């Protein structure tokens, strides 16, 4: 079983890492972090990791989900439509191994992209500042990778669920809009409704925000919720949609 998963993962990695846009995204993430660190303050000098993360987290919480969703939305339905899924399934490999292999392969692509992009930027920033908080920056990279995995896992679920590639694409766009735009209105409305315009934000409000992986990610190092809960939430978001993808794909006619 492990052998087949590894082979599928390796193929996914090779197939997707050849896409130049993945390499370009690494460069974009690196440039984004460097710009945030150097041009983020009025002083035009290198800022520490805490400052850099605070500046960069906003664009990253929009960008990384897009990478994750675009990477995975066609991985099942695209192969079914094209015909390569039928050929693959005629080989000695199970459907669960394919899903797991794809998750690992695409997960490696997104992890490598983020790691290289933010890693290079991190090294450059660390050289130029005194007493860098490396632990905090590593936490930021880990959370960014988990955010990517969460959305990639969601796209895997959409790719298994929808019967057309175009529907899966519309589905992931709607999901992105929901988490990044509609969610804010929803939570704000809920807050007004439940607190009757009170000034303090109740604890449950922040806990409820863990139901949105992008908000959970933006809470990193913000003291609303402890970091380990945020990481756990992102891990759950990475695993649960993949399990649902398993269940749907298992019963699907190719």
């Amino acid at each position: 079983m492990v052998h087949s998963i590894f082979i599928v993962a390796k193929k996914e990695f090779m197939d997707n890492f050849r896409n130049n846009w993945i390499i370009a995204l690494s460069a974009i993430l690196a440039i984004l972090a460097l710009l945030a660190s150097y041009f983020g303050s009025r002083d035009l000098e290198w800022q520490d990791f805490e400052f850099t993360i605070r500046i960069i987290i906003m664009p990253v919480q929009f960008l990384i989900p897009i990478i994750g969703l675009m990477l995975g939305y066609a991985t099942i339905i695209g192969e079914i439509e094209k015909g390569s899924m039928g050929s693959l399934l005629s080989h000695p490999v199970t459907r669960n191994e394919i899903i797991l292999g794809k998750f690992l392969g695409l997960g490696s692509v997104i992890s490598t992209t983020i790691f290289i992009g933010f890693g290079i930027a991190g090294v450059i920033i660390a050289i130029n500042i005194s007493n860098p908080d490396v632990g905090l920056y590593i936490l930021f990279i880990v959370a960014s990778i988990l955010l990517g995995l969460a959305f990639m896992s969601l796209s895997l679920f959409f790719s298994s669920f929808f019967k057309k590639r175009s529907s899966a694409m519309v589905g992931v766009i709607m999901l992105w809009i929901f988490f990044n735009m509609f969610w804010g209105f929803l939570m704000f409305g809920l807050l007004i409704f439940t607190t009757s315009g009170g000034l303090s934000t109740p604890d449950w409000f922040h806990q409820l925000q863990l139901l949105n992986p992008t908000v959970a990610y933006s809470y990193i190092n913000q003291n609303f919720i402890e970091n380990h809960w945020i990481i756990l939430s992102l891990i759950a978001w990475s695993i649960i949609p993949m399990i649902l993808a398993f269940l749907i794909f298992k019963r699907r006619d190719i």
Partner: protein
Amino acid sequence: MVKRTVICPNCKNQVTLQGSSREKIYVTCPNCNQKGVFTFLEDKTDLKTINQSYTIEVNNLTKFYNGFKAVDNLSFNVKQGEIFGFLGPNGAGKTTTIKSILGLTLSSLGNIKINGSDIRKNFKEIKKNIGYQPERVAFYDNLTALQNLYFYSEIKNAPKKDCMKLLGEFGLKDLANKRVGTFSKGMTQKLGLIRAVLGNPSLLILDEPSIGLDPQGVLLVREKIRELNKRGTTVFISSHILSEVQEVCDRVGIINKGVLIAQDTISELSKKLKIKPKIIVELEKISDRIVEAVKKVEGIDKLEISGNKIEIICDSKTRGKVVLAIGNTGGNILNVQTKETSLEEVFMKYTGG
């Protein structure tokens, strides 16, 4: 003479057999009386079990798509070592049947066995011995031909060195390191066949294998099918090109509206339909006397004259009488040719086309 030790699929008893290459023998296990057939293959030296008589057994297969019955209580068998043609008009249920055999669609009812094993149990092991070429051949476009084949050979646990060898045999060696996305339909089709034969499967399922191929490609595919079959591979072909099926298949199954309406050799199906062959007698000169004499022969269904040829549809017993009648008139016969029933005729009769 070669010796093989095989394992009884029922009681796991080891049985030693002796025979010559390509010889098919009927085996009875001395321990449990399990019956089976074993073929001494040319290239395979390590067959581990007594092969069952049937490579594919489809029993009462029924498949619904949103309430529509695509396949209706379908039952048929494909014998071990034969080339079986699976025919039917568009939408007859051919692809659904193939997909069910491969576990790509989950059958609503019925069961399917491959080499005696139910595909619902341990299908991963069963699939190690299956090669499949779908009608719509697709690969991973960003990867090269060789990278694609390496991927499938790794999944199948087949030797990687075979990939380059097969690319050479199919005339694609120069394209080994080219991205498959740049391939023409014909090249992709050939690559699809290479993928199907990787690892020397004992069952080859081909869905329209000649689509998109040039005449040389068609001949190459036909040659490969025969070659693999000679080595003991059972071949299941679904094709619209009836002449191709007639050329290579031992038996055919005809499906229409999800129901299997016939299954036999082409000659047996012709007999069942009472389709008689055609004899073409070429003469130096055709006279009214000759035509009258032929018309008088009993058992003639149809007589047509074209140039200096008389085409007669009659059964095999009448053929001799026709030739004799022409000879008695003094006609000078240049050539007598028998044209057997074409699969096309059989197919049209069965499907009502």
